[in-house]
């Protein structure tokens, strides 16, 4: 860890301004991802702006009938929220499938969206990694890549986005609300929030310098049966090999989003459109364009099987 200075932001606008104008500044929320990366000098901020005291920790209804989730709402509190559990069950389930109770007590909505990949080469500063050190090459390609992505990958990077929460938010068509360094607020559809690696895997989101996330807004509830199924190497406390967030609608309209397989939380209109044709069709549509290594090619099968399991359980219920 490099020495750094620390300040507490007093307002959202100040936080954004300070972040843009201070070279090497970063926001810190729960710190569960950022501090780990700082200890390894994968992240080397010179200044931390603490955004924990800005009142961004509320969950409130929106005039449109949706829900606004403050950027600093803890994962534990969000998962336990009555409205979330009733109307957005998939989100609650995805959160509870992630990390551990202790981590969720600290982890925040914004921090979770912005958590960085779990690619093992990203974590070892002696290894090449285009995401950590642009231009150094990709250690994972041709290396150990069992956990890594098969969709949205590039020749520069095949890292997976590790979040569970973000997959459910992608499914629910959330939008990410921000305030920029110029004090201007904007709303970014979650589909556009995370970037694909392309030639610039170090650029991970649409956020501009200093831009702060204030909340995540969910549109009004869509009903249906909400499920989140996470398949991993142990029963708990592991990142997804494959996860599927799904809402099965009463009218046959269903939607699917996927974790563990994409460079970002993955969703395609074609997969949703194939819902009535069953698991195999949904998997085929979702996996279109997949690029696998010999370590992670099983993920294609696993996506289909996980969907099959969800369909089987849905049928058992009805």
């Amino acid at each position, binding site marked *: 860890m490099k020495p750094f200075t620390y300040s507490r932001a007093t307002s959202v606008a100040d936080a954004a301004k300070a972040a843009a104008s201070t070279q090497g500044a970063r926001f810190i929320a729960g710190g569960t991802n950022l501090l780990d990366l700082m200890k*390894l000098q994968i992240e080397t901020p010179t200044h931390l702006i603490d955004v924990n005291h800005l009142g961004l920790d509320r969950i409130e209804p929106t005039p449109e009938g949706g829900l606004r989730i403050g950027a600093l709402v803890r994962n534990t509190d969000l998962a336990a929220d009555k409205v979330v559990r009733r109307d957005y069950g998939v989100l609650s389930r995805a959160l509870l499938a992630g990390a551990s109770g202790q981590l969720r007590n600290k982890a925040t909505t914004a921090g979770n969206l912005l958590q960085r990949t779990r690619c093992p080469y990203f974590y*070892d500063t002696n290894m090449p990694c285009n995401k950590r050190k642009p231009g150094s090459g990709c250690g994972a390609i041709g290396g150990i890549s069992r956990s890594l992505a098969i969709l949205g990958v590039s020749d520069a990077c095949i890292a997976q986005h590790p979040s569970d929460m973000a997959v459910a938010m992608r499914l629910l068509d959330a939008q990410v609300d921000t305030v920029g360094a110029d004090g201007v607020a904007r709303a970014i559809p979650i589909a556009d929030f995370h970037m694909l690696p392309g030639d610039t895997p170090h650029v991970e989101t649409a956020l501009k310098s200093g831009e702060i996330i204030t909340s995540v807004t969910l549109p009004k509830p869509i009903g249906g049966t909400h499920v989140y199924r996470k398949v991993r190497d*142990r029963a708990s406390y592991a990142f997804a090999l494959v996860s599927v967030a799904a809402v099965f609608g009463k009218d046959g309209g269903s939607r699917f989003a996927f974790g563990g397989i994409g460079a970002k939380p993955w969703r395609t209109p074609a997969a949703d459109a194939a819902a009535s044709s069953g698991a195999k069709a949904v998997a085929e549509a979702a996996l279109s364009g997949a690029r696998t290594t010999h370590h992670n090619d099983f993920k294609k099968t696993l996506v289909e099987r996980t969907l099959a399991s969800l369909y089987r359980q849905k049928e058992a219920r009805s």
Partner: protein
Amino acid sequence: MKFDTPATTNPIDKGRVVGVAHDRIDGPAKVTGSAPYAYERHDAAPNAAYGWIVGSAIAKGTIAAMDLRAAEAAPGVLGIVTHANAGKLGKGNYNTAPLLGGPAIMHYDQALALVIADTFENARAAAKLVRIDYAPQDGKFDLAAEQGNAVKPPDGGFSGAADSAVGDFDGAFAKAAVRIDQRYTTPDHSHAMLEPHATTAAWNGDKLTLWTANQMIAWSVGEVAKTLGIPKANVRLVSPYIGGGFGAKLFLRADALLAALGAKQIGRPVKVAIARSQIPNNTTHRPATIQRIRIGADKNGVIDAIGHEVWSGDLPGGGTETAAMQTRLLYGGAHRMTAHRLATLDLPEGNAMRAPGEAVGLLALEVAMDELAEACGVDPVELRIRNDVQYDPEAGTQRPYSSRKLVECLRAGADRFGWAKRNPKPGKVRDGRWLVGMGVASAFRNNLVGKSGARIGVDGAGKVIVETDMTDIGTGSYTIIGQTAAEMLGVSLDDVIVRLGDSRFPASAGSGGQWGANSSTAGVYAAAMALRAKLAEKAGYPIDQAQFDDGLVKLGDQSQTLAALAGREGLWAEDSIEFGDLDKRYVQATFGAHFCEVGVDVDTAEVRIRRMGGAFAAGRILNPKSARSQVIGAMTMGAGSALMEALEVDTRFGLFINHDMAEYAVPVHADIPQQDVLFIDELDDKSSPMKAKGVGELGICGAGAAVANAIYNATGLRLRDYPLTIDKLLKAQMG
């Protein structure tokens, strides 16, 4: 005390304290945080500076240049140890690569420097400023690719002979009615104990004290002396509490050596912990194996020919993973062969991890036995019973087992587990989304014994004090040693004070190879016998008639208190147990039977263990409570080796890439449901006066194979490459 004839009735047989379940006597100190661990010896070395290890960024090569200027100029830096300024260093007998590398580099993350600073944070930050230019060389990192180049290693050490052969294996195997011939692989494993390797070091003149986490005090005193080139008498090791070891802390490692060198350089105590992310590549690990097993049997499953070949790799000068050892002893059969071959690899050094040899050997052998049972149409429990043998099958009937209750374990375990309900046809039992199956495996682990000493005294208050350099690595040594002393002197456990893990105390067998409990309590027994004699003499009672009860020495209706006999200055005795050749004349081993029920998701192939159960025979169970803890912990580790544990080798860069606890998966609570442990009554009079045997490693032996066999019974999928992860199950399913 020499132990060279079988034990007869002795004070331990009373079973008043020994053999009764007790809470750990060190428990309160641990849960209240008052038990001092090596990195927290503020009491002993309050002004310790902090060291951070700089590990090699390459696997093989040399240091071309090292630039320390930026690091030296960083805030708080007090000194930097490198090969260039450390002076001439020796190498310990148990180390393969030097603990401080340079200019030659032998493996990834080999320590090349220790940066010392006033705070932990400053040391860690400055360590990143050490610039090293490397001249890399090509290395060998792929065991499968090197299998053909593997050679027969020298005989000796713990491994014994590399090969064994009895009868005509090839001929008998070729003629056998039923033949199994399969290849199995196990990956490299990391000990993953909770406490990392850690040491606080301080010099007083030319005398060195290391407060360290070490399982083997006497060994390591010698290793420190040899490496630093100083007399043993100038080295003191103190290791009273250890946060797990599993073999990782059997040896002197870089934390202790570098803390000593750092403290010398800056003239102030220094403490060093090996960072979690450095542990897999800087320290030792259990080496990967490739194993071939051939079994030839008659139609009833009775074995005539059994062969087990093992390939593993290590750095030049390293050793084998002795995974075929149990196959020399476990089952009968007139025609036998085993062989170990060693490939040279430039990966970090391999060494012992919980039940070295058996833990991975049984992952293969006990699956092969399941395959044989299937091929013969014999129940897998029955098959093992049919092949039981009460003597060393290589040496013949003249070398019987001291005690062997494998059959009893299989029968009792099967009964308790409800084995009779198992459907022998795989893939037939369904519970909702789960395919359900049951598996069995034998457990086998050698019983090793070693010389062990202790000092025992009574003070003027009648308290009994025991001192030995024996260690407690979470196993419960404090308690069983206390129980032994209490039993021997007729006091309650509350009246015993146990002091461990200090090289100033008599040398013990230490903690390793599950020899510690039996050997160290036998050492306490020996010392207590000597003290009883002194007490009786002081009381004026003939020793063969004196009784030790209720804090009194009694003769008929006369009695005197221990306190009075000890007097103000106390009364002490010291002795050690030395083992004769009973372990040569008799095979000494511990046995058990593991049972497991798993569910395998019909779609996703996720495996969930539903129940584990086992029956074990390991001589007198000194403390059933901590023995059970050892066994369930080891069963958990066995489950991990079956389902998830693997260090992933990047064969291009030559390192274990998943070197943190997020990526190296071990079981969590949710993976391990109900575990049932039954101890079969057994006293082994040839093992020690305690009539006990080791139990700390037995539980891992075979546990993973029971899981694998249960997966087969659930699904019909036979996987032979561990760990049995979802990707492999899916691939097997698709054929």
